[in-house]
């Protein structure tokens, strides 16, 4: 949101371009410089310099075995797990949001499931699904479904009563009411929760791969640490950071191009 506002200001005021680009960039440079300096001053085996880490990062991405054995499985797992959570979360959320009875019967269970600190479920998932793909995908889906359920239900509940009454007067059947009225009305809340869920997916992926993976970036990072390959540990974390940034940017891009109308309702001004 800040970005889109920023862009608009840039368009309005050419002079602001340099400031908007230069300042964040110098923030990055500041960060890199501080890291480099710290590594030089401490001169310890456990903190490689920024440049060493970046070059290891580049080598990692150029290595075919890393891409096929670690990066690709991780990305596939996130998208499958996230996809399952998104579809089932929106479905459950609409029902729970629309029906007071459903909300009451399931409320305690949903609250309890959301209260479990997610990583503690990984050993349980290992017992049920064994090591590897199925366990990791199940972990992601089972963890990130809850914010989607709760936000969808909230979005449905906050719907303009006039919309519902109009649909009822027009004699909409139930299914059509759900698809044509409730889902679009809840869409801004759903999209906000999906963004959160995508970020969470990456985090859950990492823990699950660290504890019970045989491939993937999380596995790579922890295996590098255990074999005291310090530079690769840092480079692996850097891959994760870039991946997180890419996912988030991709999501914002899709959101901005498909859900233009929601921005007007969200009130960009509050973020400036």
């Amino acid at each position, binding site marked *: 949101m*800040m970005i889109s506002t920023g862009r608009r200001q840039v368009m309005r005021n050419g002079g602001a371009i340099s400031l*908007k680009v230069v*300042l*964040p960039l110098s*923030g990055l440079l*500041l*960060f890199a410089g501080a890291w480099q300096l710290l590594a030089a001053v401490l001169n310890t085996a*456990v*903190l490689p310099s920024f440049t060493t880490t970046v070059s290891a990062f580049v080598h990692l991405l150029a290595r075919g075995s890393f891409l096929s054995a670690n990066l690709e499985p991780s990305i596939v797992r996130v998208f499958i797990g996230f996809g399952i959570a998104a579809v089932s979360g929106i479905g459950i959320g609409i029902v729970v949001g629309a029906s007071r*009875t459903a*909300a*009451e*019967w*399931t*409320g*305690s*269970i949903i*609250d*309890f*499931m959301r*209260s*479990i*600190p*997610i*990583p*503690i479920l990984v*050993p*349980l998932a*290992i*017992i049920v699904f064994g090591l590897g793909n199925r366990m990791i995908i199940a972990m992601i889906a089972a963890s990130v479904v*809850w*914010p989607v359920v*709760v*936000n969808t239900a*909230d979005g449905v*509940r906050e719907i303009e009563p006039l919309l519902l009454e109009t649909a009822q007067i027009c004699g909409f059947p139930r299914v059509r009411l759900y698809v044509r009225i409730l889902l679009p009305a809840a869409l801004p809340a759903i999209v*906000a*929760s999906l963004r*959160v869920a995508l*970020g*969470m997916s*990456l*985090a859950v992926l*990492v*823990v699950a791969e*660290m*504890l019970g993976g045989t491939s993937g970036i*999380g596995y790579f*990072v922890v295996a590098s640490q255990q074999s005291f390959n*310090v530079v690769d540990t840092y480079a692996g*974390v850097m891959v*994760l950071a870039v991946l*997180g940034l890419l*996912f*988030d940017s991709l999501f914002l891009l899709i959101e901005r191009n498909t859900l233009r109308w929601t921005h007007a309702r*969200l*009130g960009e001004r*509050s*973020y*400036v």
Partner: protein
Amino acid sequence: MLTPSAGEEAALSAPHRSIGERVLPGLSLAHLGRRVGGVVGAIAVWEIVVASGAVPSEQLPRIQAVISAIVSSRDALLNAVAQSLGTWALSLVIATAFGSLAGVLVGISAIADQLSDFIVRMARSLPTLALIPVAILIAGAGPAMAIGLVSIACFWPVFINTKYGVRRIEPGYLDAARVAGYSKPLVVKRIIIPSALPSIASGVRVAIGLGILVTVAVELVAASGGLGEYVLQAQQLNLSARLYAGVIVGGILGWLLNALYGFIDRNLLHWARRGQGSNAFRLSSRQRRLIELQ
């Protein structure tokens, strides 16, 4: 929010409000009955699944076995919970202190805000949990590493919320202060900090859930004691009843922490909600949710 990236990370634990609470503010007997009924139903489904033999008991033990595991290993469980709670509480205090301080400083200055924007976005999209191996390399698998990492994870939601809170202050208040000839420290003390307090509170709210989550994750990966290591051991020894016992205790713990926050929120922070109704904080619930999610 969070990701366990702080964004996400903050994202990792959306603030809890009971779903039922939002449907019906009052608590009728029938309402309570249905909520309890849901739990009874879930337990019944669990028992039926086990009894039918569809799932082997190593994967899903009977409820009685889990309850007796909780009772028989209560000392070990209590110790583990106490250790996890200690790490969590200390980290939360550290993160709140540094996060709100940095948030106010960065929020006041537009230049600092822009400078930090990229780093914040990067840090938010990096799952803090990915840093566990790095933290083990640097500080070993001890309590200092756990507290350091949990503090860093909880820092982001407090910092980001405080920053937004400061930047959202009604410009009229600042103008009025200038007209009244307030000095800069006085502006911070009389206007900026009081107006940012509700935002700090919602940052802390996110940090509460995020903190317990990262604490457990660190304990699992580093095997550094606490509830995480308890569950990890149960898995490695193939004691599924003890494993389920640990998970259920973890769920109850998480639920209690959120209930505690709800209690504090209702009883100590009610003035903040009043403030949100005034001009300075007239946000739609959707906006507020978005901010909490950040």
